[in-house]
């Protein structure tokens, strides 16, 4: 009996030791990781993406609710289909990319965590920073853990992948993005999406 209890205790201890969180790096040399944005406008909606995504997330497949991390997007990488419109967007009145080169989201707490297989959905609370203004937001997120799939994406590298997808909206006025101006031409609401994959090499 004593031996059985000792064995069980040892198994419990070693399980805890090996279930360590992994660090996933979201810098993507292929440029596929992207953050998308959309604003309604009278003639046609303004759609664009940003591909200079970076950041790290600490994720434990045994405890997805304990995930923390920060994702950063370079402001200058935001693209729209009209170069003049892009120039205005990155200019001082709108995003002021020269003064505020980064847009970021730092995840601090996961709630309503539901895991089914390798997929976890949750509401993540964190700090969203745009044009130097930081606000706490809670956004729905979906994490997909892909064990031993790094080699499929990057030949020669062994490791795991973590795919993060999120979608939420913010208001221009909350982040001093040309507040109260041109609302008849460009919506105050900005819809944001995130589709990124991070790698944890072994």
């Amino acid at each position, binding site marked *: 009996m004593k031996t059985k209890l000792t064995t069980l205790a040892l198994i419990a201890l070693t399980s805890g030791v090996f279930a360590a969180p992994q660090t996933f790096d979201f810098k993507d040399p*292929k*440029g*596929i*990781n*992207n953050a998308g944005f959309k604003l309604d406008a009278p*003639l*046609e909606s303004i759609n664009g*993406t940003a*591909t200079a995504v970076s950041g790290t997330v600490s994720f434990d497949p045994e405890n997805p609710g304990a995930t923390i991390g920060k994702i950063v997007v370079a402001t200058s990488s935001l*693209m729209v*289909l*009209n*170069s*003049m*419109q892009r120039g205005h967007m990155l200019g001082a009145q709108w995003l002021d990319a020269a003064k505020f080169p980064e847009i970021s989201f730092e995840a601090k707490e996961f709630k309503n965590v539901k895991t089914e297989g390798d997929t976890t959905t949750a509401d993540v609370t964190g700090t969203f920073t745009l044009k130097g203004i930081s606000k706490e937001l809670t956004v729905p997120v979906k994490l*997909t853990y*892909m064990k031993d*799939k790094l080699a*499929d*994406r990057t030949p020669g590298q062994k490791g795991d*992948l973590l*795919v993060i997808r999120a979608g939420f909206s913010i208001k221009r006025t909350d982040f001093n993005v040309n507040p109260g101006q041109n609302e008849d031409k460009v919506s105050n609401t900005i819809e944001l999406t995130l*589709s*990124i*994959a991070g790698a944890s090499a072994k």
Partner: protein
Amino acid sequence: MKKGLRIIAGILAAGSVIFWAAAGGNRGWTKTSVPTKIVDQVTGIEGVSYGKHFVPGVDFLGAALIGAGVLTGASFFFRTKPK
């Protein structure tokens, strides 16, 4: 001069409409790049790459037609030479 301005206006108007229609008749804003979807086969993530390509929109068409209108209007300031 009068006739010349009107001919130029006509060419500008007709030319811009033909160019706009031939380029796809884009009813949105003028585009200077076009997006191409890329799909990561491993993760399923859809990315976008941009290639430089000029696609005239209604702003281009509008500017050309306004220009033609200005030239036509200017032509009225010139007298027709008596024969």
